[in-house]
């Protein structure tokens, strides 16, 4: 059920690929976002990693340490938001809170914040080219964005504004996907079931009363007046009936008697 944040290590393909999803129960992958760093609570960012959004949960898997990953169900995500104030956090990111009771927050921060430069980063022209291309790709599909990790944005000196715009577009897209998936996961069963049970029993009670009412009149032991103070009334009624029968019998017997004598 609702588990909050949990460690997630089940990957397909020798534990190296995508997360293993519960496809038997209809879980589908909705979105994959590469080059995503994750920040848990006030800890330092962990990167690089890949964010997988399914119809049921959000999974972040480390690209480096294949045994490292986290998942949280949409049922546990109480709030998600877009954060873009550089003073609060250096880059635009998706901010989420889960399981209201635990004040443990996740930052999923998109793309670029990988602190260590990766190969190919020194070639700035390469980056600018990639960035332009990425903007187009984002506009067109938004999905396959930055599949090549060497293309990650924000690793150069200039054109920060462009990178930021792309990032903001990206987090907005992610935000929308989060919204869409959250809506796929309404509160299940527990609360609903109780309510249904309650309504069900109430209906049943009405039915039972109605049925019992019928039984009442049919079963003589349940006849009115057999309890407490009404006892006398019942006896009187019975005696009255008995007396009547006696009278009839007596009359007949008298009749027979008289006939026999005549």
């Amino acid at each position: 059920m609702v588990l909050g944040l949990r460690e997630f290590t089940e990957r397909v393909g020798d534990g190296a690929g995508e997360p293993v999803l519960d496809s038997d129960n209809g879980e589908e992958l909705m979105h994959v976002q590469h080059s995503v760093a994750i920040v848990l609570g006030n800890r330092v960012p962990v990167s690089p990693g890949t964010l997988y959004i399914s119809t049921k949960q959000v999974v972040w898997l480390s690209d480096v340490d294949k045994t490292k990953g986290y998942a949280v169900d949409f049922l546990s995500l109480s709030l998600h938001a877009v954060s873009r104030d550089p003073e609060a956090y250096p880059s635009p990111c998706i901010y989420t809170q889960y399981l209201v009771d635990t004040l443990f927050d996740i930052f999923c921060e998109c793309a670029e914040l990988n602190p260590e430069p990766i190969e190919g980063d020194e070639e700035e022209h390469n980056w600018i080219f990639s960035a332009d291309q990425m903007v187009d790709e984002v506009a067109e599909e938004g999905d396959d964005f930055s599949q090549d990790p060497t293309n990650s944005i924000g690793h150069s000196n200039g054109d920060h504004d462009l990178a930021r715009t792309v990032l903001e577009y990206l987090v907005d897209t992610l935000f929308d996907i989060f919204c869409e998936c959250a809506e796929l996961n309404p509160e299940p069963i527990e609360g609903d079931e109780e309510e249904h049970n309650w309504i069900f029993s109430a209906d049943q009670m009405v039915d039972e009363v109605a049925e019992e009412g019928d039984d009442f009149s049919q079963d003589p032991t349940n006849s009115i007046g057999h309890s407490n103070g009404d006892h006398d009334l019942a006896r009187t009624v019975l005696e009255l009936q008995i007396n009547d029968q006696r009278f009839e019998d007596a009359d007949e017997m008298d009749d027979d008697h008289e006939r026999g004598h005549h």
Partner: protein
Amino acid sequence: MLFFSYFKDLVGREVTVELKNDLAIRGTLHSVDQYLNIKLENTRVVDQDKYPHMLSVRNCFIRGSVVRYVQLPPEGVDIELLHDATRREARGG
């Protein structure tokens, strides 16, 4: 469904959503769905010291099940209309 309809009428107005973890967020009601999930825009956190991360948040999605209260704008509350609507709902109409 009454509350769903009612909240839909409040779209565009300023509300404060109080979560079950005591976080209170004020913002413009952007949208609401049938589960009473709420999207807010131009948000600000009432108790900013407690939730510094939320400072930078401008819009957010709140799961309906974690909402404790929604504080409404007084001008958004038409008591007569609500009376009628609740009576109608109670009659099952």
